[in-house]
């Protein structure tokens, strides 16, 4: 019973965020993507109810909002962990062993690529080139970039991150 109430409260907060951001962009052309980005920055992902609300506020059909959200890799339709560990799989990183880094991190955290840990702390995600090719292989957590990694070093970083 309490769970549902908590969920409802959370959703109500999410919808408030959607209202606020949409209001900022009222009347501006081409605002769907920046609005989705700002909302996701604040609530972490884009639940269907939020996308519906954004559509209503911007005067855009919900199908179009969903079409945009599902097209771009940046938008998450499921919640993610507190920290998203992005493992670069660009060409230089691939050639320098990105696969081993992803394997090591997945093993360390007990998840598969793209999944979130049980405690909700980490999500491991393979991403396309982060642009730090001289330091391959590279991972990025929030705005922090780590380069020249060995699988062991990558494990150490997540073990100590956020403490």
């Amino acid at each position, binding site marked *: 019973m309490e769970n549902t109430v908590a969920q409802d409260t959370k959703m109500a907060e999410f919808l408030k965020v959607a209202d606020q951001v949409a209001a900022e962009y009222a009347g501006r052309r081409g605002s769907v993507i920046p609005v989705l980005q700002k909302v996701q920055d604040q609530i972490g992902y884009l639940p269907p109810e939020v996308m519906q609300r954004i559509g209503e506020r911007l005067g855009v059909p919900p199908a179009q909002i969903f*079409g945009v959200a599902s*097209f771009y890799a940046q938008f998450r339709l499921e919640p993610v962990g507190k920290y998203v560990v992005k493992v670069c799989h660009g060409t230089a990183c691939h050639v320098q062993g990105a696969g081993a880094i992803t394997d090591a991190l997945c093993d360390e955290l007990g998840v598969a690529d793209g999944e979130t840990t049980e405690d909700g702390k980490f999500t491991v995600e393979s991403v396309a080139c982060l642009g730090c090719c001289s330091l391959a292989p590279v991972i990025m957590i929030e705005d922090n970039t780590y380069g020249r990694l060995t699988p062991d070093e990558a494990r150490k970083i997540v073990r100590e991150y956020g403490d």
Partner: protein
Amino acid sequence: MAKTGATAEVTVGLSSCGIAAGAADVFSAFQRQFEEKGVDVRLRRTGCIGMCYREPIVDVTTPGGAKYTYGGLTVDQVERVVDEHVVGGKPVDEWLVRADGRELPDEAYYDQQVRLVLRNAGIIDPESIDEYIEVGGYEALTKVVTSMTPDEVIDELKASGLRGRGGAGFPTGIKWDLARKAPGEQKYVIVNADEGDPGAFMDRSILEGDPHAVLEGLAIAAFTVGAQEGYFYVRAEYPLAIKRLRIAIENATERGFVGDNILGTDFSFKVHIKEGAGAFVCGEETALIASIEGQRGMPRLRPPYPAVKGLWGKPTNNNNVETYANVPWIISHGAAAYAAYGTETSKGTKVFALAGKIQRGGLVEVPMGLTIREVINDIGGGVPEGRTFKAVQLGGPSGGCVPAEYMDTGVDYESLTKTGAIVGSGGMIVMDDTTCMVDIARFFLNFTQDESCGKCTFCRVGTKRMLEILERITSGEGRDGDIELLQELGEKIISSSLCGLGQSAPNPVLTTIKYFRDEYEAHINEKRCPALSCKALITYDIDPDKCIGCTVCAKKCPVEAITGERKEVHTIDQELCTKCDACRQACKFDAVTVS
């Protein structure tokens, strides 16, 4: 107060690569040292110095202007540099990588470079408009707005021979002319900063190191084509570039170089930043435009070209970051000076992001026409010790692999096209004998398949089928006829795709088949990976003659596949082994073999 006459300033390279290598900590260490010891020397930040393989990089400059460069500097080393060099005036030779007046080995990295686009990167503080102005910044814009006509600017660009640096190489002067002549009052200019090629970081470095150069070029374009508004479309994965761009636009607006009534004339120009949302295809100009309009990034048929009908249906000039960064230099120094560099048809310079299996990887800018050999061996120092050069991948997922026999090909638009590769945006990934070319083809196709927008059947379905074939081949299930099927599919995808993504996605596959067919055949006919890379085709074993039973490998193995008593030969359980390579790296006795 510590004696300060010895040093004028200390500069730390603080671009994304530098920061990732620890440069921010090094910067803080210098700050602390200066405070504790009362050192009164200017501590500055700069963008990418270019020697990425030596990050973190710190320059110490004397009052006379002599520069000493430290490479790979760690936080522990800062104190000695401060005491002996900054204060004491005596450089710590063993940590120097470059020094004015000395021919240190790393000097070879810069010998053949011509840094026009990167003229200020690594020298000025990218967050200071004053430093940009000090080195001649905004002089070109002033000249254009106060004393040139749009036609004169276009003539100058045409004479310079500047071609689009995003990959297509379309003559910039002609492009601007088309937008200028297009009917309509409202026009736009766009900077394509969606640098999505894996292995490319030229545009990121330019934006992080010298954002004003791009902004100035954009403003000149706006004046020339008659645009009132401009957009920077930047990948969201480049937060530092976005931050520095915001600062640059703010400062430029304050000083009247951007905004209303620029430099007191009636030319007004507003600039916005749009962040990408993680779609490689949005590097294609019509998809980019759709994205700015808030839609799915799906390319549109051309003609009409954006120059005539682009953003919101209005004439739009879209160019790459590097292209715009060239413009102020050309206006200030003249078209002839620019055309003095390069070849007959490919004028000027090109910035390359050198990475992969290379000793000296980083950002290099060379005259068009320098050979691949000169870039990779002379500038880049060649492949690591003990390895053999195999191929260089140029142009990212749209490009091709160039093998050793073509190393004397000049890096210019025409010469490279003959080999099947392209100049592309500038990504140059070096591969050696440990790289499996079939795996590389699979890697690129995996990428383009994922990024395909889905509009065209051949691209959407064809790349998937090609990928499936390549996955079968790399996992030991290749079949007779696979190579021919890949070629047939590849050619059909190229000819029936609407945009550059589909039209070039098969290139890495077709070029690797052309030059490395033997590797494909080994995978298919012998179930063997010559580079010993494809996991399904290799086996890890322990050599009983070399193993001394130290148990290190068993402890390292993440899946507990290694068994053995102390001081006895260990064995690997093939059923459990995931070929992660941890044991081979850990073994100090070379006892782990791969076959």
